[in-house]
């Protein structure tokens, strides 16, 4: 999978662990040889830019809605997509991505209602679920195992 194009799709940044996990995942996947792009809403992108001003962890940061349009219009494509979600809108965006893209989907579901939200996912994906909002460690540990499997 080295060299594969990976999209990290951030939703609303209301839940704190999204930013830290996006930075961590982008860095870890980049170090493993993946071509990583992070897509976010304006607020999610600003949080990331302030946290990583020199682009050390996130090399490519793009607008979420424009990326969706580019995929639909076949101007870009990805092999893998990690979709962050903690609310119904995040799940709705991820479902759209699953429908318009051939990427293998990974749903990162977090926040206080993570388990109930994960139950609503109807598209084919691997679910990484942690009922956490502030402490990213449990979600990070689960993602480490997923990445281990991907890079095998």
């Amino acid at each position, binding site marked *: 999978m080295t060299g594969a194009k990976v999209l990290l799709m951030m939703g609303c940044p209301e839940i704190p662990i999204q930013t830290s996990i996006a930075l961590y995942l982008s860095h870890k996947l980049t170090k493993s040889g993946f071509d990583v792009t992070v897509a976010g809403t304006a607020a999610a992108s600003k949080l990331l830019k302030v946290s990583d001003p020199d682009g050390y962890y996130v090399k490519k940061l793009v607008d979420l809605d424009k990326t969706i349009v580019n995929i639909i219009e076949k101007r870009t494509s990805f092999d893998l997509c990690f979709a962050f979600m903690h*609310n*119904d*809108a995040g799940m*709705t965006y991820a*479902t*759209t991505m699953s*429908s318009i893209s051939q990427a293998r989907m990974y749903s990162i579901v977090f926040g206080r*209602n993570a388990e109930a939200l994960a*139950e609503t996912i109807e598209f084919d994906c691997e679910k990484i679920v942690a009922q956490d909002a502030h402490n990213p460690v449990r979600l990070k540990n689960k993602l480490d195992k997923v990445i281990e499997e991907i890079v095998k």
Partner: protein
Amino acid sequence: MSCIEQMKYTILLQRISFKEAREYIEKNSEEVYYVSPGYKIFKDYYIIGVPPIAVGVKGSALIFPYTKPCHGSFVLSIENEDSIKEINRLREAGEGKVTALSKKGKPPESSKAPLTSYGDMWKNNT
């Protein structure tokens, strides 16, 4: 920002789950059409949604779901020359159409997961 936000629209429902948006459109439209995620309407809005995505017609108004990551889903209505063009395009394609007379039945594909309990839950946490 898509062209929708620069158009004159009416918000029929706001900050709801996508399932609630679909149900509202099905119950409050004279004609209902089902489209895939990414279906383009107006100049540059590609519909974000969970299939089957219901798009409704009421008179010359187009009723459709609009989802924003931080604010949930909305049901919007737009009535102008462009909405008439969009309605004609849906009618010409004709796929997945459910008319007012028959719309009490199920849509072409039903959702697998019961979203109602979750929809209530997330609304209480925002």
